[in-house]
């Protein structure tokens, strides 16, 4: 048995996927440069009731229905909708063919049931949750299943092929126009009337194409399916007719995307491990960002908050014309905390807090400090926090030499200082924005140099440790004729 899944008016469905309320409004899809410009190719039910037909030009359609909304095709959204169809259908049978736009054929060889209504309706509901409205036909061959899908509301299974096919119009088989004209001249309008003619006689008069059409009309044709496999990533694309300049509508659409993504993943028992967000601006620029979800989840609120914090700090120079979001799926992870384990209670909440902190102090100012492998002063980088994995066990660290002296508090940047020295060059008095006064004791100079082979990277200077009379221990740096206060001991 085979199942054909049809998304009627696929291109229009794809265009309206993120505006489901528009399905009840008169909307027409314009495509192709016809002799009078683009013509109407697909319409909603409300537009059809207003007598708007395929093939109308835009002005003809608007003359029939002044409230008509005209839309253009959105290829990226169509590709995303086709992927949704593939991935959703894949959960019901791995033998899948992507027959045409909005049209999938499944080989049901693995399914043992004879009545396919139950699972087909589940599939219809899953697609409806993704704002795709499907019809499913089940029959003994792909061609017959396709004809059944066209008549399905929303499901039709063909048990007796002959009685189903007999009243169908010949046009359902989309015959060659020349053949259709000849058969029309003979008074043949339905498949039943055509198959009533002897097959050999049809072959004698119409040739091999006539025989092939006769076989299809009799429901005898079968063919091998061209297997397709859905991609492993799950994504959504939204293209905006008008560029978005404010955050609210963007967040609204983003939430819908996330709801649909998580729903698709939940249908196949997966959750989101990472997200990739891409915003296309009107000026051609693309803003892209990856988000790792520390504790993979299918919770829309959690995912939305993670993205929301990013948007709070986002500034785009031009309106956003398209949004693309892709999810890397993973299996749900179960946690069994150890009795003495100091794991984070809520990794996703922590990631959210980090995003908020980054919004307060800056992206590069929150994290775990990591020392660079150099003796250059103040050489470190702030790495992304990784508290999900256990910390280095103290026992695994080699014994280290003891440390001497108090800790240094560094001034970033170093403060320019006015320093008075004696004849030997030893500092006597210091004046800076943070400390001033006579120097009670001074130790130095401690000379430092590094990267001497690179002229610009040399940091040849001398340092002094000083104790001020009013109190305080400081480190002074001297290079050329300039002095800096680079830190205080504490």
């Amino acid at each position, binding site marked *: 048995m085979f199942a054909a899944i049809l998304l009627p008016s696929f291109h229009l469905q794809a265009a309206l996927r993120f505006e489901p309320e528009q399905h009840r409004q008169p909307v027409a899809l314009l495509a192709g440069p016809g002799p009078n410009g683009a013509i109407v190719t697909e319409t909603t039910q409300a537009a059809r009731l207003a007598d708007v037909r395929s093939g109308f030009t835009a002005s003809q359609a608007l003359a029939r229905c002044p409230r008509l909304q005209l839309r253009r095709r959105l290829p990226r959204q169509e590709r995303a909708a086709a992927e949704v169809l593939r991935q959703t259908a894949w959960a019901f049978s791995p033998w899948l063919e992507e027959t045409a736009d909005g049209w999938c054929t499944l080989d049901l060889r693995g399914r043992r049931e004879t009545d396919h209504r139950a699972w087909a309706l589940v599939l219809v509901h899953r697609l409806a949750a993704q704002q795709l409205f499907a019809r499913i036909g089940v029959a003994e061959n792909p061609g017959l299943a396709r004809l059944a899908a066209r008549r399905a509301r929303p499901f039709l299974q063909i048990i007796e092929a002959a009685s189903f096919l007999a009243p169908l119009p010949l046009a359902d088989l989309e015959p060659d126009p020349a053949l259709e004209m000849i058969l029309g001249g003979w008074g043949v309008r339905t498949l039943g009337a055509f198959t009533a003619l002897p097959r050999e006689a049809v072959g004698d008069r119409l040739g091999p194409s006539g025989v092939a059409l006769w076989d299809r009309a009799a429901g005898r044709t079968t063919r091998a399916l061209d297997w397709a496999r859905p991609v492993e990533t799950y994504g959504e694309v939204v293209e905006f007719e008008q560029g978005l300049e404010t955050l609210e509508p963007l967040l609204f659409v983003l939430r819908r995307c996330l709801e649909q993504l998580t729903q698709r993943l939940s249908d196949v028992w997966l959750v989101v491990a990472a997200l990739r967000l891409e915003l296309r601006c009107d000026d051609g620029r693309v803003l892209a960002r990856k988000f790792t979800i520390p504790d993979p989840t299918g919770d829309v609120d959690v995912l939305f908050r993670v993205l929301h914090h990013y948007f709070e700090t986002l500034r785009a120079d031009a309106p956003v014309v398209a949004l693309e979001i892709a999810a890397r799926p993973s299996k749900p992870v179960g946690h069994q905390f150890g009795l003495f384990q*100091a794991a*984070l*209670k*809520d*990794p996703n*909440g*922590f990631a*959210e*807090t980090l995003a908020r*902190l980054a919004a*307060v*102090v800056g992206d590069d*100012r*929150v*994290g*775990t*400090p*990591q*020392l660079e492998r150099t003796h250059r*002063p*103040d*050489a*470190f980088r*702030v790495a992304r*926090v990784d*508290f999900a994995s*256990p*910390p*280095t*066990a*103290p026992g695994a*660290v080699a014994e*280290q030499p*003891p*440390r*001497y*002296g*108090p*800790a*240094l*508090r*560094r001034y*970033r940047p170093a403060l320019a200082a006015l320093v008075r020295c004696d004849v030997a060059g030893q500092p006597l008095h210091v004046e800076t924005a*943070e*400390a001033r006064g006579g120097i*009670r*004791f*001074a*130790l130095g100079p401690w000379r430092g140099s590094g990267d001497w082979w690179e002229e610009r990277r040399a940091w040849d200077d001398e340092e002094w*440790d*000083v*104790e001020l009379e*009013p*109190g*305080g*221990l400081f480190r002074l740096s001297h290079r050329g004729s300039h002095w800096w206060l680079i*830190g*205080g*001991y*504490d």
Partner: protein
Amino acid sequence: MTARSSKIIELRTLLAEKYPSGLRPAAAVLETGLPALDALLGGGLRRGTLVEIARRQPAMGATCLLQSILAGTWTREQRMALVDGRDRLDPAGCRRETLTALLWVRCANAAQAIRATDLLLRDGNLPLIALDLADNPAKELRAIPATTWFRLQRIAEENGLACLVFTPGPLVASAHARLFLRHPLTLASLDAPNHALIAGLDLELVRQRRDDAGPRVALAG
């Protein structure tokens, strides 16, 4: 029993009946890794409280203390956050491996630091938050309303976290305990071993709620 004290007892009974959640069992404590400091605070940093460590002038050893607490946190395989009010931490002064236990928030001013502390306390994932305002200008610190400290204390209490605040003088109105660093370091201390410096820090407990001010204690003792 005087009439006044009986009224107080009645009032306490009434409050206990009306707000049973207000009477919590004794909060667990978070060990700092410094036995003398833990002893001074009655076992360690009490969860759900703010503890203030103040200094009268620079070079009192507050940063040494902070780094030792970080090392202690790492030794216990836990994590802590440092909200650095003026971005003054020198990571090179810490042992490389202990930095893996640290979330460092590098703030530009006290307002940012308070906001960051608020977020971390509300988050509740890290048991110890250190807020370093020791180098922030007095003008910035005066601009922090007293109610902010009570708000932070309430959040810490709700989430069972300990918050250690380093200040240049008495500042935190809602502090459960306030300690003063008394003895300034000298140039000679640059040659002293780090552990000896920590042990020699001169801390005085000047305020502790429900307790009298304790004695002046050197950490070595």
